[in-house]
């Protein structure tokens, strides 16, 4: 294991985040605050409590998930797409590092960034609404697993994308809709029965549900199902990354 190389990639990627601090951290915080103002204060004041939790507090886990998913995907996809685009990837490929180490460096850095971001949003949220975290360990576990899984997905997208359009395509067409329809802003009990069934095919529902359970002890689906779902998704992403490096798809002709 070339730990030094992993550390080098990891630190270089994090340094990139500090260079672009405004985009990386400040803008998600601002947009989350806007969500709280609009949904929490303006609209939320007219919505009754959801399962004993005020609406403003109810949406916090969903909002954090929303940011975590989109930021993980965009951080990781950009992190690997950019060297591919500029050509600096040659150096990583020519170095004595294994594929696993490359992934660990890039995905680790992206996941760290979104993890930090998630915690910052959590702190921001605490200024707007009364928060309660029933199961802090599970909260951190869900946060870490989700950041890791979606950073892996971002890495895959970054390798798959041949241009900036494709890079935006998946987050825009898939991630954002799935997240909005994944119970971030509502409990699926509020949906008509048919849509309750349809929504169970949305993997994000399980993530949001499990994450919300770690806060308030309330969930749409069982915690075990949530955990299983994220592990399955993590496994799929790992398999896909393995296949990419085995075949050299879009990275090593």
């Amino acid at each position, binding site marked *: 294991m*070339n730990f*030094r*190389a992993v*550390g*080098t*990639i990891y630190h*270089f990627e994090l*340094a*990139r985040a500090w*260079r672009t601090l405004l985009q990386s951290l400040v803008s998600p915080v601002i947009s989350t605050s806007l969500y709280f103002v609009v949904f929490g204060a303006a609209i939320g004041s007219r919505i009754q409590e959801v399962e004993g939790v005020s609406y403003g507090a109810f949406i916090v886990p969903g909002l954090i998930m929303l940011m975590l998913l989109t930021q993980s995907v965009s951080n990781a996809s950009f992190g690997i797409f950019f*060297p591919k685009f*500029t*050509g*600096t990837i*040659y*150096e*990583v*490929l*020519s*170095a*004595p*590092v*294994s594929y696993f180490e490359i992934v660990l460096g890039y995905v680790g850095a992206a996941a760290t960034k979104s993890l930090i971001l998630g915690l910052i949003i959590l702190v921001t949220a605490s200024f707007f609404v009364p928060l309660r975290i029933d199961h802090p360990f599970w909260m951190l576990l869900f946060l870490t697993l989700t950041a890791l899984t979606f950073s892996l997905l971002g890495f895959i997208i970054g390798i798959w994308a041949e241009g900036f359009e494709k890079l935006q395509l998946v987050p825009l067409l898939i991630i954002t809709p799935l997240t909005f329809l994944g119970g971030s802003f509502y409990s699926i009990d509020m949906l008509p029965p048919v849509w309750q069934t349809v929504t169970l095919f949305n993997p994000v529902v399980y993530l949001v549900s499990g994450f919300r359970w770690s806060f308030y002890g309330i969930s749409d689906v069982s915690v075990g199902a949530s955990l299983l779902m994220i592990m399955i998704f993590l496994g799929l992403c790992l398999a896909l990354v393995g296949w990419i490096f085995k075949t*050299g798809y879009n990275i*090593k*002709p």
Partner: protein
Amino acid sequence: MSHDIADATATETRPTERAHTLQATPSVIAVQGLTKRYASGFEALKRIDLDIQHGEIFALLGPNGAGKTTLISIICGLVNASDGQVRVNGHDIVTDYRAARAQIGLVPQELTSDAFATVWNTVSFSRGLFGKRADSAHIERVLRSLSLWDKRRNKMITLSGGMKRRVLIAKALAHEPQILFLDEPTAGVDVELRRDMWDVVRSLRDQGVTVILTTHYIEEAEEMADRIGVINDGEIVLVEEKAALMRQLGRKQLRLDLQTPLASIPETLAHYPLSLADDGHVLVYTYAASPDEHSTPASISALLNDIEAAGVRFKDLHTEQSSLEEIFVNLVRKDA
């Protein structure tokens, strides 16, 4: 056992003795039957065999699209081979890639860089990537040797093309490689910088680094290389020591500007390889540049005597030696 001892002694050979012992040294890079077929069916490399000797400067010469970069890219791990094998100091580049790659530094053809990183950071990054402990003294040495020390705090985006090229060389040297690949190192570089780079490459060779450079500038190969390989259309057409190549294939010409033009070559001179040029104004005598061939310069005095006897008068004479460029053009053309 005796083979091992021979290898060990050969490896320790000093650079000054290198030219005489090239044949005895073990190969640093051994390429066997290397083939690259792309999905489109295009065969970029066709069963290449090539051995690079320890401590030499090897120039891989070939026209655009001949397969130079593909060959380098496979050895360095950027491209997968379809078939064949490459060993770097005995380490297979696929099964033992860590040991193989650790010894190699690569300077790519394209000027790629992380635009917003500083020179110091990007060079240090390269060292870390190869798993080497941070060593600011070494980075400083490399930067100074490439006249980059004053630029160490500059961001890559602010550097000129020539400076970026130097940074790429510094990055490749950051992990103290035994073997350095330079893919078209002086493409788009001005004359002065080119000379500087040649000096850098020579000093690396003197430190025992094996250098493989690709170029389509003949001048560069002629100036730098100990050995030259010519690649054309995915095949190695020729590998030869430069001096021997020049000797074997080089032709010299003696050109005599005549006082009065000749319609044909006089019969008394018919046994010489003579020809007429410029409507009979110039008499051309072609002979091998190598002095040990039968048409040695010694026979030139006989020729001049016979020309005198034949009553042919000339007002001026000069000789020309064919350059590597002509040799190269002939090779590639013959092959096409």
